[in-house]
């Protein structure tokens, strides 16, 4: 709690820098316009103009907030101009990918912990893969999956039979989810291997003196003691999944989702739209990581561990 005042001070300082930057960076355009119109601007006129431009170089915080308000609350959430609509498209791909990536990651980690051959052959590659920019394959994966026709989650016909119309988020969901899964996969593998190996030799010996079966050792010792590592890697994984989904949206069609908003914004110089999408992505990331953090605290407390 004693950190509240320092944090607020830092945030206030960042805001002040932001406003100063907005005035400074947008003043060139304001002065150009004034010169063309043949008028002299006073200092206060410059300030008011720079903070209210339609396509500012750097939008002021209140402009971004206004834009966010207009595109979330004041728009119908099914509208293609609503940030909630785009946010949901990104979120659905992130979550689907994250669930698959985490599930497969945990399975592989169990395999690695129990099979020495898998450990020796796969683990060096899993660690090495953390140092390479996997995201670079996103555009290719999107195009290849488009070519072979694997783009929609449930085909159009199945979805229409089930829901009447195909929900918007299902269109083009699969490539994004695959990249999101791929990005969350390796952090989970590495974290879970560490976690499943967390019990020390004494504890494993104790299980042996109880003549516990392999399954019992797994469920009652290894899995519970891996939980802190599990949640830590989930936090890394979900953040990576979100980045994966956003970057995949840069090359996906139709151009939608938060990544799509950023891309169209940068095509048409709509800086407010880019900033709104950026803040939307930040809020989404913070909410997802916060949610996992809350799950972590709750689970660990019920298990009697220190969170």
């Amino acid at each position: 709690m004693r950190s509240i005042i320092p944090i607020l001070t830092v945030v206030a300082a960042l805001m002040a820098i932001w406003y100063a930057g907005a005035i400074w960076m947008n003043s060139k355009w304001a002065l150009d316009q004034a010169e063309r119109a043949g008028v002299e601007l006073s200092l206060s006129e410059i300030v008011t103009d720079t903070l209210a431009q339609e396509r500012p170089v750097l939008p002021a915080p209140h402009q971004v907030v206004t834009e966010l308000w207009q595109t979330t609350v004041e728009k119908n959430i099914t509208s293609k101009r609503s940030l909630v609509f785009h946010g949901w498209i990104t979120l659905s791909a992130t979550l689907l990918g994250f669930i698959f990536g985490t599930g497969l990651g945990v399975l592989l980690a169990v395999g690695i912990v129990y099979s020495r051959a898998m450990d020796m052959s796969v683990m060096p590659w899993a660690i090495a893969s953390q140092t390479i920019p996997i995201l670079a394959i996103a555009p290719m994966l999107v195009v290849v999956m488009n070519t072979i026709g694997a783009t929609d989650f449930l085909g159009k016909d199945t979805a229409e039979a089930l829901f009447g119309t195909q929900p918007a988020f299902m269109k083009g969901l699969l490539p994004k989810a695959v990249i999101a899964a791929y990005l969350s996969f390796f952090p989970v593998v590495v974290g879970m291997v560490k976690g499943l190996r967390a019990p020390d030799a004494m504890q494993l010996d104790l299980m042996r003196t109880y003549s516990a079966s392999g399954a019992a050792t797994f469920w009652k010792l290894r899995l519970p003691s891996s939980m802190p590592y599990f949640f830590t890697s989930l936090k890394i994984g979900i953040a990576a999944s979100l980045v994966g989904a956003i970057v995949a949206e840069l090359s996906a069609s139709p151009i939608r989702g938060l990544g799509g908003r950023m891309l169209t914004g940068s095509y048409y110089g709509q800086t407010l739209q880019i900033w709104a999408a950026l803040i939307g992505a930040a809020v989404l990331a913070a909410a997802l990581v916060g949610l996992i953090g809350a799950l972590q605290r709750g689970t660990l407390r019920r298990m009697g561990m220190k969170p």
Partner: protein
Amino acid sequence: MSWVIGSLAFWAVMTWINFWLANSPLRGTRLVKLFVPAVFGITLLVVWEGLVRGLQVPNVILPPPTAIAARFASSLDILWVDFVQTFVKGALSGYIIGCGAAFLTAVMIDRSPFLQRGLLPVGNFIAALPIIGTAPILVMWFGFDWHSKAAVVVVMVFFPMLVNTVQGLAASDHMQRDLMRTYGASYPQTLLKLRLPAAMPFIFNGLKISTTLALIGAIVAEFFGSPIRGMGFRISTEVGRLSLDMVWAEITVAALAGSAFYGVVAMIEKGVTFWHPSQRS
């Protein structure tokens, strides 16, 4: 069909060899520890080649490794130009500026617990956000050339590096700092002779995390606009032309550059923090 059967047979044999080696008395030796993952990697490549040829997968979906290698060898000049543009100009300069700035900031706020308590949570929070989203904004500000890519990299590596350095500077314990005080050491002396060396494992952790982020930032920023060279540019245009062997060659370069970059930083770490328990095995 013989390609498919052959590659599957190869896979079975190699897996059997790996299992045998991993459970043989030789498993602790250095050679086997390198050999087993190498065999696994080669097996993957052979199975990939065999399945792509055997099932006649079109090149626009998945080219075989030999085609990628041929393309790699025949377009070394293009790959080199892209590498210089993206890695040397974009990623490396941004990495040096970003990590340097974060390090200096951490040292500057070191004497102010107030600023640390404020900056650390904010930095941790920002480090978890999808900062890559600032790429379109920074490309607008700094133009299409490498300057904007370096700027994206600076923003991406700054906060992870800052958080790690601040944590590192707090890593020396009370006894050690008390000892420095009994020596009558001044603040700069304590910083240089005790706290910075003690911070090195944390600082290198930040530097290692940043290597991957730098490369990702430089490549993804190129998707938002770039001159007609660069790894991200090449990937997105060659994908559009469906020449996937070139894309894979470019991805190979990215993977090699990423692991070499990480390896160099890890080697420097080994030299600097030779005293740390994690390095003394």
